[in-house]
């Protein structure tokens, strides 16, 4: 099975719109949305959820206030400044600051700190008009987005295996940190969607360095290329220097917004240059995977 991951570095360059097109154009694929804190792919693909599973990951520390003696050892040992004093001279854990390391639980001399499994979100197995899809929702202000991303990818790969699908198409998160690393390690190919702006170029360079760091081949798509044609050329040159291959350009077009509003992929919404360009890019992706 092959796995392609669509990423961008910079947000808002068109990752999800392009992933939606790939989903429509692919013939035997499983789809996955790994942008777990701002997942949008489901809005184009209208998944019918077949199974919902709780995502339990890590633990959270909770001080039982009746047992707390107010010694303050937990606060002194916490490296995340996640322990606060209460008006009664005792201590409590700020759950937004807590990283679940268990140090306070270990050092509390009267064992007054519980460490219960943390419900961080849920993930779904769904059917869409283009095939099976695995997606997720991270709870608000939760940790462990990287682990949820890994869960989505693992479950999507298992479904692909079970259903004899030969391709996994993944919509990735923005950035270069933990959820992105969790989305790309071990993938067959990255499709980096960028835009011809200084920010787009800056962010693409960092993503291509990351691809190189993990030795994953990458293709670069320049979306909205006609906003700045010179910059589009620079970006493609930069992509080659960064070890990637330009895969094509897509013009700036309002149809991206219209397709979202109509809850359709671009290839269902329209015909013409945008669709021709995206189709040509998809064919290039397929050739590259062979």
């Amino acid at each position, binding site marked *: 099975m092959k796995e392609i991951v669509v990423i961008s570095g910079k947000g808002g360059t068109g990752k999800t719109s392009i992933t939606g097109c790939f989903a429509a154009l692919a013939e035997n694929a499983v789809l996955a949305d790994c942008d777990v804190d*701002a997942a949008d792919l489901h809005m184009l693909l209208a998944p019918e959820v077949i199974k919902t599973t709780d995502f339990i990951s890590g633990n959270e520390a909770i001080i039982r206030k009746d047992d707390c003696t107010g010694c303050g050892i937990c606060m002194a040992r916490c490296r995340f400044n996640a322990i606060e004093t209460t008006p009664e001279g005792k201590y409590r854990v700020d759950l937004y600051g807590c990283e679940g390391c268990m140090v306070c639980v270990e050092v509390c001399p009267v064992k007054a700190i519980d460490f219960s499994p943390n419900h961080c979100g849920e993930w779904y197995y769904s059917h869409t008009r283009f095939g099976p899809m695995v997606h997720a929702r991270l709870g608000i202000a939760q940790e462990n987005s990287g682990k949820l991303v890994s869960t989505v990818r693992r479950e999507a790969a298992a479904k692909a295996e079970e259903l004899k699908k030969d391709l996994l198409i993944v919509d990735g998160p923005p950035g270069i*940190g933990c959820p992105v690393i969790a989305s790309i390690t071990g993938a067959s190919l990255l499709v980096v969607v960028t835009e011809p702006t200084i920010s787009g170029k800056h962010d693409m360079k960092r993503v291509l360095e990351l691809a190189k760091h993990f030795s994953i081949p990458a293709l670069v798509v320049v979306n909205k290329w006609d906003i*700045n044609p010179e910059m589009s050329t620079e970006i493609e040159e930069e992509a080659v220097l960064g070890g990637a291959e330009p895969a094509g350009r897509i013009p700036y077009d309002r149809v991206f917004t219209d397709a979202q509003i109509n809850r359709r992929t671009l290839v269902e919404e329209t015909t013409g240059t945008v669709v021709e360009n995206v189709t040509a890019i998809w064919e290039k992706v397929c050739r590259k995977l062979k």
Partner: protein
Amino acid sequence: MIIAVASGKGGTGKTTVAVALSMASSEPVLYADCDVEEPNGSIFLRPEVTETEKVLVEVPRIDEGKCTSCGKCARFCQFNALVSLGSPPLVFPELCHSCGGCEIVCPTGAVSWKKVPIGEISLGTSDGGRISVLEGRLDVGSSLAPPVIRQVKSHIADGVLTIIDCPPGTSCPVIESLGGADYVLLVTEPTPFGLHDLKLAVETVRELGMPFSVVINRFDEGDSGVEDYCGDEKIHIIVRIPHKRFMAEVYSRGGNLFDAIPEMREIFSEIPRIIEKGVEVK
């Protein structure tokens, strides 16, 4: 006053808004780029960098002479950063959160610490010294943005108008960036994706109990979903930025909002005052 500029969805114009707020102010202002995975503020503010420092995190070093291969450290570690197979543990520094737990549970004192770099902070000035520009930058290949964000925030002083440019999303890097801010501006765009992610961002700031309002970028393109939602939820829309293709072209070359739409400067210069009137500042 500290104003954080955030959004659920990426690419809605957070940096455009944060830079515009910094430029429109006539007072001294600190712009702090907490989008450490992809910091872009410097592209528009072009600071003269005066100082840089490394972001170092501590990871365990195992003294194999003292280690008895008991495996307690590896069993304790909640992040799987230590693996022991009946031997002194292997350390996976990229998974380590530097919590110190392994040292605490080691019965023979075999754990000490070494510092490894994961990013860089730079300090500089722009606009003849009026704008201080603080940037955090995560090293490529490092996964943990929060320690870099914490170090950026350690440079924020009281009493200066501070604009925090947050990363996209709703998880730990965003929570870390929002901490300590007096007010949040949520930047969105009037599209279904923009609205969906705005709702997540609103849930996040409400959960944190922070006062906020919404900035709609490209308000005249797309649909009425964001306006309707804000109306229903009684969320104040503090400013609407028009869409102009020309704006996208100016932005592509590193130009700022006022290069494209000069009349927005006065509106942005008023925003900190409007916020201050409406919110009790710590």
